[in-house]
């Protein structure tokens, strides 16, 4: 073997080793096996109890450093008013960060509608937040591994890793994700991950004066939230998408989009 052949062989050998090593880092089957954990965070919303004060939205924005006056939010409250003629009006003025302080429905573009009291057949508030889906479509589409699901079910966004491509914002069937105006990355509710991991309730849950919002662990049979989900009529948003959302609602009307 002359020197030329030796160098050639050495280069080929190195290439093969590095390739194999590199691929191994990406696909490691032993790690793919899911660990069984006794913790899975879920959320329960009671739409009858919600009074539309919007303190949850205020608390969320301030707790999670989402610029207060920017028109994006990790959570918001929608109002639905159904008239005796079957018409449905829905609005969420400024995501309800200042609550609902008028009976007029915000139709957008500066137009408002008064609905006379006698005509209102039913009306209610629906708080919305990230569903922390069991099968999150937003995670599946991320090209760089910047958003992921934890073993406790919470989906997080890695702000250092996110390239801001916006695929996840398009992929969420619930419109929960948005572009953070300061960090320029995708952002969304994470059940206040910094609070629930230190024994605190999420900011919105703590701020709620009526108990319309609750957090729980669906793997704990002594948990009051788990008990309600197991024994009462609860519903989730858009189950037909197959994402298996984990925010449960009591009193979710068919009008809710």
């Amino acid at each position, binding site marked *: 073997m002359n020197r030329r052949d030796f160098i050639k062989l050495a280069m080929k050998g190195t290439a093969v080793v590095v390739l194999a090593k590199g691929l191994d880092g990406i696909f490691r089957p032993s790690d793919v096996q899911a660990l069984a954990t006794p913790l899975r965070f879920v959320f329960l919303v009671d739409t009858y109890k919600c009074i539309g*004060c919007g303190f949850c939205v205020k608390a969320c924005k301030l707790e999670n450093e989402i610029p207060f006056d920017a028109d994006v939010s990790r959570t918001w409250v929608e109002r639905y008013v159904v008239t005796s003629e079957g018409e449905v009006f829905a609005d969420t003025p400024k995501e309800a960060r200042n*609550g609902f302080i008028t009976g007029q429905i915000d139709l957008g573009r500066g137009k408002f509608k008064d609905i006379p009291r006698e005509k209102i057949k039913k*009306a209610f508030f629906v708080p919305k937040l990230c569903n922390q889906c069991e099968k999150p479509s937003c995670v599946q589409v991320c090209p760089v*591994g910047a*958003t992921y699901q934890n073993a406790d079910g919470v989906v997080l966004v890695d702000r250092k890793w996110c390239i801001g491509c916006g695929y996840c914002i398009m992929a969420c069937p619930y419109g929960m994700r948005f572009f953070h105006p300061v960090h320029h990355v995708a952002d969304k509710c994470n059940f206040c991950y*910094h609070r629930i991991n230190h024994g605190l309730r999420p900011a919105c849950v703590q701020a709620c004066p009526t108990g319309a919002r609750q957090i729980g662990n669906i793997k704990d049979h002594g948990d009051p939230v788990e008990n309600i989900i197991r024994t009462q009529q609860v519903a989730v948003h858009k189950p037909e998408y197959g994402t298996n959302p984990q925010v449960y609602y009591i009193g979710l009307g068919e009008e809710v989009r």
Partner: protein
Amino acid sequence: MHVLRPLYVVLALAVIMLIARSFWVPNDFGTHEQGYTYGWYRQSNVEEWKNFTVKYRGKEFCGTCHAGQAQKLASAHHKDIECENCHGPALFHPADPLKLVLDRSRELCLRCHTSLFYPTSQRSQIKGINPDQHNLGLECTLCHKPHEASKPGRRNR
């Protein structure tokens, strides 16, 4: 052998990319508990999120210093409202900020007290007023005590 040269170039490029990747990508980046589809990420990000600063401290905390307000609030109609809903997040109060805001705006109270006739919502059970008629232009706290709302009418301090 000439035909194979482009292949060597491609291989060399692949090797360079993989070497660069091994420097660029942190060791904790990879597939974790939830599998490749949902659990392909940088592990240390979980700790980063856990260490995010807590701003809302809860009313038990306030009560340790403002016992008077806490006791008044607990004994009246507004007992279920968090202090910080009206005064803003405590953060490191009283070190930083030294004082929390005193929001005397009508809008604060109207979040709950604008009369809305919503039959399928608990909102309709709260005593409501018409903000366009009830003492227009005056701060609610001029006549009502925010902490002791159970005493209606004129406030006497």
